[in-house]
Each structure stands twice: as C-alpha cells, then as structure tokens.
C-alpha cells in the first residue's frame, strides 16, 4: 500500500456506466482517490443544482485499467431522490466534483482468522473490496449477500474469487435462501466459525449481525449509513448514537467518526 493518506477533492470522470438489476454501477477516474482507498471508505460527489452532496459506497477499486486507477460506485436507480437519479443517469464523459476517500474504514485482523461478511442491497458494496483485502491476509471469508429481491442483489459471482463460501438470501425467495439476515445470521455465523463479523447494509441488518456476533463471542464491525449532508465532517448533520469506551452515551458523526464502528458500540434503539 502507498503512504498517501487523507481525502482529496478532485474532478472525477465517468468512464463507464452499467445497469445491473435495480442499480447503476458507475466507474470513475478520480486522481488520487483509488490509491488512498481502504475498504469501508466512501466518497461524496456534487450533484448539479443541489447544495448537499451524495455519499456513495465504493464497490471496487482497480489499481490500473485503460483509464488508469478507477473506482466503482453503486447508485440506486429506481425510487431514488432527484439528485441520485440525476447521478444514475449521467453518461460516460460526465465530470463530477468528488471528495474522498472519506470516513473510517474497516479494521483488518492481524492474524489469518475466519470472517463472516454480511451485506444487504447496494450498501453491501464495501464488503467486496474488504473480502479481497481479507483474502490477501489469508483470512477465510464467508460472504452473505442479501436483498429484498433479486434485482437488488449486488452481484455475488465475482466475490467467489475472494470468498470461501457465498450465501445468497432474498426476502421473497426469488434467488438463494428465503428470509432475512436476522432469520439466518446466527446459523450462518455458527457454520462459518468466524471470529470477526463485518456488516454493511440497512440498520436492521447491521443490528442483527452485531447481535449474533455478541451472542457468539465474536467481534463485529458495521458500516452505518445515515443521511450525510456534507460527508466531510464539517456540518455535524449526520447522527450516529454510540456508547463510548468509557460507557458514556454519545452522538458522533457518521461520516467522520464512522461510517465503520464496532457493532457493540451502536445504540441501535436511538438510531
């Protein structure tokens, strides 16, 4: 890994756009960002005509391609707000102001332990680069990808290279096991024999994964998504209720103090 650190504010360019199920995958060049990226970081982009920025998870980083280093982000295509819909509709060649990588990334275990990665919907994106890093460290990765239905399932096929096992869950049973993360996570954790649980997705998924980890005596880290108006820590507008190391209840910024935090530190009932 290179030594460069901290986020940069640069002009990104859309070099590829692809619709997969209910999501739009944009491939961007953003000078300096892929080099600094660590799994769990996100980026903030400016959307034309909007004051607030759009925070996007990074699904994949390529160190080199015909465009140089690139990063892939996943954008909700259907049922999204007007800003996100604008973003999803941008063709190749569009230039965007982009800030990143932002936030605290996933912490990686020092030893080659076994890990369970649980994600749902587009927000599962950061688990894919995480799986690659974990595999490089010799960790056994069991990946669980969940979605309400098949169209909102992030493609698990390419993750098979990094993961020892891949389990697909859909709430409607359209593909894989039927049910939610909460229904299956204890069982999946037992079978994976994981020491660390990583989760990314809606709050219910994170809470279920963190709870299962606690019951099994495993560590958990969760990538929390809340509305982040600036993404950079400047506005104090994003709210993540946690319990501090000292046992005191606090409210921290999702973007600057998260988005990745220990699962047992989140006050889920206040989120």
């Amino acid at each position, binding site marked *: 890994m290179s030594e460069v650190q*901290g986020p940069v504010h640069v002009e990104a360019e859309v070099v590829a756009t692809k619709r997969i199920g209910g999501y739009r995958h944009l491939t961007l060049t953003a000078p300096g960002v892929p080099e600094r990226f660590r799994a769990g970081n996100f980026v903030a982009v400016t959307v034309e005509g909007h004051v607030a920025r759009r925070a996007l998870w990074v699904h994949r980083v390529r160190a080199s391609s015909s465009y140089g280093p690139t990063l892939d982000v996943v954008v909700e295509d259907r049922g999204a707000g007007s800003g996100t819909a604008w973003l999803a509709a941008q063709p190749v060649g569009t230039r965007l102001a982009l800030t990143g990588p932002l936030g605290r990334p996933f912490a990686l275990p020092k030893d080659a332990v076994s890990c369970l990665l649980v994600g749902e919907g587009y927000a599962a994106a950061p688990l894919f680069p995480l799986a690659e890093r974990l595999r490089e460290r010799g960790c056994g990765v069991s990946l669980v990808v969940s979605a309400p239905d098949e169209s909102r399932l992030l493609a698990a096929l390419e993750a098979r290279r990094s993961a020892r096992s891949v389990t697909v869950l859909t709430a409607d049973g359209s593909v894989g096991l039927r049910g939610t993360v909460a229904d299956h996570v204890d069982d999946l954790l037992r079978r994976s024999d994981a020491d660390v649980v990583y989760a990314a997705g809606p709050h219910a998924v994170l809470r279920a994964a963190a709870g299962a980890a606690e019951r099994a005596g495993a560590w958990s880290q969760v990538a929390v998504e809340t509305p982040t*108006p600036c993404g950079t820590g*400047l506005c104090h507008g994003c709210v993540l209720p946690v319990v501090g190391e000292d046992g005191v209840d606090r409210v921290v910024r999702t973007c600057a103090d998260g988005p990745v935090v220990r699962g047992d530190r989140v006050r889920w009932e206040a989120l």
Partner: protein
Amino acid sequence: MIPGPVMVAAGCGGTGRELATYCGDDGLDGLDFVTRSITLDARAGGPGPRIEEVPGGLVNAVGLPNPGLEHFLATELPWLVRAGARVIVSIAGATMGEYADLARRLSRAPGVAGLEVNVGAPDEVGVGLFEVREPYHSASVIAAVRREFPADRPVLAKLRPDVSRIVEGARSCHEAGATAVVIGNAVPAAFPDGRSGGLSGPAIAPVALRCVAEVARALPELPTIGCGGVHDLRSANAYLDAGAASVQVGTALLHDPTTVARLRAAFTSSPQED
C-alpha cells in the same frame, strides 16, 4: 481589528481538523476560523435528520452539538491554535450569566482572538438558549460578554437577517459594545415535514445582502460581516460592495470543502474583480 476578508462561519468548519485537509499546504494558518457554538455544558445536538436539502439551500436543526467549554479548551482550541488559525469562538448560553461565564473563561484561554455571540439562532437550532426576541435582549447579552472580554479583542454579534428589525438590532448590539455584527444567522424556516429549523445557503443571500445594505446605510460607523450564500468572489464582493467589511463562508463549505481556500487565494490575487 475586524477579521477577514474571508472567514469560516460558525458550525461549518467541523472542529477545524476536517477543514484543514482541504486548505492546501498552509492548512488553517492565518485563517479566521469561527468555531461551532460552544456552550458551558456539552450538548448532544438534535435528533436526525438534522439537515435537509431544499432548492437553493439547506434547512437545519442541528441543535448546536458541542463538547462543552471544558473539553473545547482542552482539545479543540489548542489544536486550532497550533494550526495557526485565528480563532474566534462562537458562544451560546441559556442565561446571561452563562454568556458572561463563557466570555470570562475564554478571555483567559491562550489563543482566543475574539468571540462571536450567537444571538440570532432560529428556535429549533438553539433549543434551550437565552431567548432573543427583542433588540434589548441581544444588547444585554452583548453587554454581559463585553464586560468580561478584553476591549482590545473583537466581540461579534451574529444576528438574524430579519430586515424589519436588523437596523434596530445592530444598533443595540453596537451600543452594547459589539465590535461588528455578523449578518446573518440561518433564517427561521420549516423542514418539508413541518419541523422548525433554519434555512441557509444561496437561497438566503439576497435576504442577508439587503440586511447588510440597510445596516451599512443606517450605521456607517459599525462594521458588518456578510454571511449567507457566499461561495465565490462574485457573491463575496456583493457583500463588500454593499458595505460589509468582511464575509463568512458557511454552507458553501458543505458543498465544496475547498471554497475557503479558493476564496482566500482569489482575494490575495484580485480582491475586487471576478
């Protein structure tokens, strides 16, 4: 004595560290940085969502989250001072006594270049604060702060940009000892779901500009600092042309964190052109 010409507006620069990343090699060195509003006791801030986007701006009810004076003095202030920022501490209190306490203790803290008194926060933003409905309310707060803070350092009064009351409010603060008035705070507004909040951003620039012009005309001896929708040289110059001595950049930083660095550079090279 009057900071500027480009300052960071209260509540829009994080703790300073986050902003420094986007300010080039010099970081915050020499930058007039108004902190988020500091209260005597820590405040967790309001529930989410605290900020929502509307056409041309943001509605916020962030609720002044801050670690309280003690923690601020121990951690955030020394960092800002080391970074070379000219630190203007925004203060907010529930009573006049709290404002006086804050001013007294900050007057002894090394590196505090000035104070900005938050007297015009919209209701939901400043829940639990000393209620400022009439000009004499803000004047009494300013007087209490001025008594405790050395006369050679500025005390700024940040007022609500309400054109029907702004001249009266600015005059009262001036008479009570304010060095300058910052115009203005977020405009009282509502979220799309009806909750109360404050509107900021380009949408309020014409409102704040009108207020600055009125005060500059009526009280030419009182320096004003324009705040609201400043994002480039043109929008900054609009305030300066209307008579403001300086401008603050707030919401624009949430849209582009490099705004302050760019504006400072622009002012250094060509202060009055675009």
